[in-house]
């Protein structure tokens, strides 16, 4: 009994161990050799610990940024980072075990739904599933669920989103790919369909973005972290200048306040770098394990793949989509404080991936004009929607951050609606 108590109290309450055990299960189900099971499990545990380390670096930097932003402009400034939200939820909020179990639960519910319903979509983008799992757990927790009910409800909701979001995008996907073989597995679908609607209403399908000669790449986005730095450094410096040396001195001490904030911006990027290295380690074993199982259990499935699957269909539209979404997100950034919401600082990488894919959707149904108008609207949409969720995230305990991928935000809204309805009875 004492041994059992020791195991429950000291081992099974450790999120890193629980996550390792899930990886172990996945690897064992695939009948991997013992050596591969042990190394895969250990790497997954390590991934969680690296992720935690990255998360605390990000939060250290953002705590200073958030406070000085408030002093400089008299309002709240939130950085849009789904990675950061995941980091805080898994570590500070102590929901790491639940998030990992629900990640596996989402896989299972997705397989069941793909087998028994006409929606044969298997969601294969590991990182996106981790973000969805995070928001499902966070909001299920917020609605008051704990333990097994929390895991079941979050898995069912996440699994339903993982099955239905690719189905929602498929009518436009069929037009883009010219077939029904491949689906889109990226939790920004509501944003893409919103963009397509605006584009269809305002655009002209006959004039495609692909008829224009453009450079085929965005070279300044070659390095993810450099691109994030290019955006975060000006944000931090503007805050430093407006807050002034006196306000910054509380944190900077004897260091020049501009230099200090420049280094804090780099700290943010460092945290993101470490956190993402942790996420990759964490998912490296889990995702292929479940991918193999799901592909076997639903052989006639349509794989829902990450957004780069669409880039070859309309590379110009990706570039236009990124540019116009960025313009829209800057407009959105100034709109949110007027609505009495915090100012949301857009993320460059989400603008690139979500914006680029929105560009492909928009071009397909509304050509160049539709892409420009649709993607500006998309940029505003992906800032306002997370801003609307931010008061609830603040109540839960998230500091200085909000989500990016809009489907995960709608997951939050979904839980809030359920909570309101059940509250009536």
């Amino acid at each position: 009994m004492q041994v059992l108590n020791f195991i429950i109290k000291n081992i099974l309450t450790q999120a890193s161990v629980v996550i390792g055990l899930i990886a172990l299960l996945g690897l064992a189900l695939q009948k991997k050799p013992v050596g591969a099971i042990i190394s895969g499990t250990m790497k997954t545990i390590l991934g969680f610990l690296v992720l935690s380390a990255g998360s605390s670096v990000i939060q250290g930097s953002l705590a200073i940024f958030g406070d000085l932003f408030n002093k400089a402009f008299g309002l709240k400034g939130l950085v849009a980072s789904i990675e950061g939200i995941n980091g805080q939820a898994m570590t500070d909020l102590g929901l790491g075990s639940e998030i990992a179990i629900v990640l596996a639960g989402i896989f299972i519910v997705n397989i069941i739904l793909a087998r028994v319903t006409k929606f044969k979509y298997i969601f294969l983008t590991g990182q996106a599933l981790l973000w969805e799992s995070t928001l499902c757990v966070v909001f299920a927790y917020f609605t008051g669920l704990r333990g097994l009910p929390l895991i079941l409800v979050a898995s069912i909701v996440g699994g339903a989103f993982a099955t239905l979001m690719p189905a929602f995008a498929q009518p436009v996907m069929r037009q883009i790919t010219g077939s029904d073989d491949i689906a889109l597995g990226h939790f920004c679908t509501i944003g893409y369909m919103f963009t397509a609607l605006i584009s269809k209403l305002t655009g002209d399908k006959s004039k495609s973005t692909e008829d224009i000669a453009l450079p085929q790449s965005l070279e300044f986005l070659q390095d993810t972290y450099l691109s994030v730095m290019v955006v975060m450094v000006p944000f931090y410096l503007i805050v430093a200048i407006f807050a002034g040396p006196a306000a910054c001195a509380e944190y900077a001490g004897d260091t020049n306040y501009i230099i200090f904030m420049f280094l804090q911006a780099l700290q943010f990027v460092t945290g993101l770098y470490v956190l993402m290295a942790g996420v990759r380690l964490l998912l490296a074993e889990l995702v292929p394990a479940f991918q193999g199982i799901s592909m076997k259990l639903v052989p006639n499935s349509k794989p829902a793949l990450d957004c780069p699957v669409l880039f070859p269909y309309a590379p110009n539209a990706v570039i236009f989509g990124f540019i116009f979404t960025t313009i829209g997100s800057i407009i959105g950034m100034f709109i949110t404080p007027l609505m009495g919401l915090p100012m949301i600082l857009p993320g460059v990488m989400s603008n690139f991936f979500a914006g680029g894919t929105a560009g492909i959707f928009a071009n397909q149904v509304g050509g160049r004009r539709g892409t420009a108008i649709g993607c500006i609207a998309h940029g505003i949409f992906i800032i306002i929607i997370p801003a609307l969720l931010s008061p609830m995230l603040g109540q839960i305990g998230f500091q200085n951050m909000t989500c990016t991928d809009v489907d995960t935000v709608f997951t939050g809204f979904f839980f809030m609606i359920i909570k309101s309805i059940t509250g009536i009875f």
Partner: protein
Amino acid sequence: MFFFKKKEKKQEEAAPVVNKEELIAKAAEKVNALEESEGDDRVKLLNEIGSLYTQAEETDQAIKYYEESLELCKQHGKASTDLMKLYNKKRQEAAEAKDDEKVKFYMEKVQSLMQMSKDMIRGNA
């Protein structure tokens, strides 16, 4: 939903009649021409062969020529979009045959093709 009606129309228009033997013969002709070609001409020819084999539903052959095309010249377009569908078809066949290794093999091919698309658009390829 405003997108659904069109889909049905498109599907009705699809399914053109193709003569498989004719397509294979055309592809074989172009394969012969490959020996004398190089550079952009070779890439163009490889893509044409890949496309003919795809239409003829000779998946392995189509994959072979498209892969060579992308090895010579990484570019967005029909080679990579067709290749993605062909890999998926092979993955599905492997899943139906319960061949775990092949499922894994073609999933990895899908992933690396997506990585290539991502790298290309970010100027890394």
